[in-house]
């Protein structure tokens, strides 16, 4: 079962001068890469560099910024391969950003094979 793990940044937490969470992310990545539970993942540029695309009728609307205005924003993502939600929760809760921000787990949409 694959889950996408959205790393959600809390701007107030991120503004703190020194964020030990950032250093520990590497340990988390190394651990779950070697166990095979983390298939891939990526840190993203902040939403100031986001571009949102909408096609409405025949018109293409391109806007500067993220798709939704909110205080929190998506700072990165990881793809997990887990037996079930409990395993995914255990891995997500050991991610440093679960303390410094939030982590959202989304199961993959299943396609019949």
């Amino acid at each position: 079962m694959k889950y996408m793990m959205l790393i959600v940044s809390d701007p107030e937490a991120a503004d703190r001068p020194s964020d030990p969470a950032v250093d520990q992310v590497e340990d988390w990545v190394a651990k779950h890469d070697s166990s095979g539970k983390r298939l891939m993942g990526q840190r993203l540029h902040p939403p100031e560099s986001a571009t949102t695309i909408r096609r409405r009728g025949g018109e293409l609307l391109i806007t500067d910024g993220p798709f939704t205005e909110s205080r929190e924003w998506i700072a990165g993502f990881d793809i997990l391969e887990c037996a079930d939600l409990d395993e995914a929760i255990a891995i997500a809760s050991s991610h440093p950003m679960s303390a410094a921000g939030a982590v959202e787990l989304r199961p993959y949409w299943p396609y019949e094979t």
Partner: protein
Amino acid sequence: MSERALVDVRRALTDAMAEQRLRIVASLIRTTGDWDLAEDAVSDAAERALVTWPRDGIPDNPAAWLTATARRRAIDVLRRAQVERGKLADLAALEELTEASSDLSPMGDDRLRLIFTCCHPALALEARVALTLKVVSGLPTEAIGRAFLTSEATMGQRLLRAKQKIAHARIPYRVPTDDLPERIDGVLAVVYLVFTEGYATAARHLADEAIRLGRLLVALIPDSDETRALLALMLLQHSRRDARDVDGERVTLEHQDRSRWHRAEIDDALALLRRRWLVRGPYAVQADIAAVHATALSAGETDWAAIVALYDELLGIAPSPVIALNRAIAVGMSDGPLAGLAALQSAADDPKLAGHYLVAAARGDLLTRAGLRDEALIAIEQAIELAPTEPERRQLEQRAAELRLP
């Protein structure tokens, strides 16, 4: 068939369902992974019983008959789905179902697996409550909707979404190991919410259902002290039901006719509380407080000093402004109204209690007992203005009327 024989059939079916329904549903969910199929198979077996039992006689072991019939129904449905949709994924389930013995409880822990899954923290609390009542207790969707003041359609949607989340996010069907104490707390919170909701909406069958769940959990997790404590707490609170609601009016503990308390339930609870504790959590302390009341002959003869000490213990485990308020009332009974007023003052400093009618009502009581009737009347009138519901207002009006007498 005689009227009498039909009554016997219905009784046999009710008894067998009470004993076996949850076991069958829980084991079918494990083998098929299909919650609706499991529930339908059991309803189908019950319907068949109503047709065949009057004709062929009640089977020697009605529970085993229901299990076998529900299992056959599940196999039929799975086979049909296999043919219609060419599904192969259910083969493993089919095999297990076909080979399963007629053993009444093939997997003793299935019921516990089901309960923990229904109360999984990844589900919203209201979904956990709805799912537990529907699947574990077997209440109809309509009845759950009525108890929670929503329509059958809304409740049906809530149940559907919860089952979909379990399937889509793959919430596991198992008894947790790593975080068992926290997960037990989560289950107990659902049960206690069912219980308190029963009182809030006067849907008394919900309180009965919560106690039934509590008994089941004590049987399934005998080592959990908090589970035992919660059952005791619910039994003690429920034992006062007939003295507490009289002709639609809410009667406070102080004024209840204690001869109307259900003694057998109190004795059950006290027996549960007599066992030794390894973990003493908030339910244990609350149950002890309820037990002090339950064993007192009258409000005046209550061991209020013991109750104050228990509230102090409870504040240490789970601090809350409402507990501080109740402690102040107990101090008033134990050490006199002036001491109570001082304790109330410090409890009322908590912003969460600002404007709460219970603070004003407690102040009114303490001032009455201190002989300050004018001040007491002002406090009670203030409480009337703040009271959230009509029965509470009526009760306060009555106290105001007593204070206005010369």
